[in-house]
């Protein structure tokens, strides 16, 4: 009668070479340029890109916070700075990145606790993220200009 191997640490030592090879052959990332891009994948990669952008923008955000909180003059200076065209555009782009990351992040958290995990709901959620982000991007633009 064949018995199941014991599920303890000792069983690791008795692995065959082939078994070990399978374990060390970890999955390799997909080639991003050869795969299809359904809407869910687009929303996911944009979440990632916005996250990296925000990471790079952290010093800038802190700089503006520091300036605006330092004094009345600093507050005015920060306001004046954001009023010129290029910084204002940058400000809008960062706001859009944050809003997008935040909205897609909420969808992510909802899925983590089990909402909207089917393919259909996943697609609907991804579309909702795009629509909501576009809306808030326009609102942020109206508020800034």
């Amino acid at each position, binding site marked *: 009668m064949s018995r199941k191997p014991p599920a303890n640490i000792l069983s690791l030592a008795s692995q065959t070479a082939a078994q070990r090879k399978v374990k060390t052959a*970890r999955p390799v*990332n997909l080639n991003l340029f050869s795969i299809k891009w359904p809407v869910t994948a687009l929303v996911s990669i944009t979440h990632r890109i916005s*996250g990296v952008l925000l990471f790079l923008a*952290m*010093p800038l955000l802190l700089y503006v916070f*520091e300036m*605006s909180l330092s004094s009345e003059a600093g*507050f005015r200076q920060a306001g004046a700075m954001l009023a010129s065209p290029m910084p204002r555009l940058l400000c809008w782009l960062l706001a859009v990145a944050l809003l997008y990351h*935040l909205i897609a992040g909420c969808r992510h958290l909802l899925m983590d606790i089990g909402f909207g995990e089917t393919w259909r709901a996943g697609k609907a959620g991804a579309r909702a993220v795009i629509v909501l982000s576009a809306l808030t991007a326009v609102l942020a633009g109206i508020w800034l200009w």
Partner: protein
Amino acid sequence: MVTNATSLGRSGLFDWLVQRFSALVLLAWIAWVCIGVIAMPEFGYPQWRALFAATPMQIFSLITVLSLCAHAWVGVWTVTTDYLNEAHLGRTGTAIRLCTQAACLLLTLTCLLWGARIFWGSG
């Protein structure tokens, strides 16, 4: 080969939880600041400063800075580990990844200390 597949804690589950928890803190803080600004009768320096001056808000902001840095570090660690590796970049992949991660870690720590001073000193 990656032998230690975590960035912050000793397990991937811990990192995963850190990123979720910190996301919620960031969300709460951003919402609170936005509500505070919208509720201001007029937007000026005294009101803006007052928003961050009370001790509970200072603590909240400091926890948010900590969360931001933990979130950002786990995040860029994940991204860099996914792309900057030998499978994508060839033999120098690991060296490139470690250098990039070291730079990201320095930036994160800088923001942590700087952010802590800004918000803790805002009383």
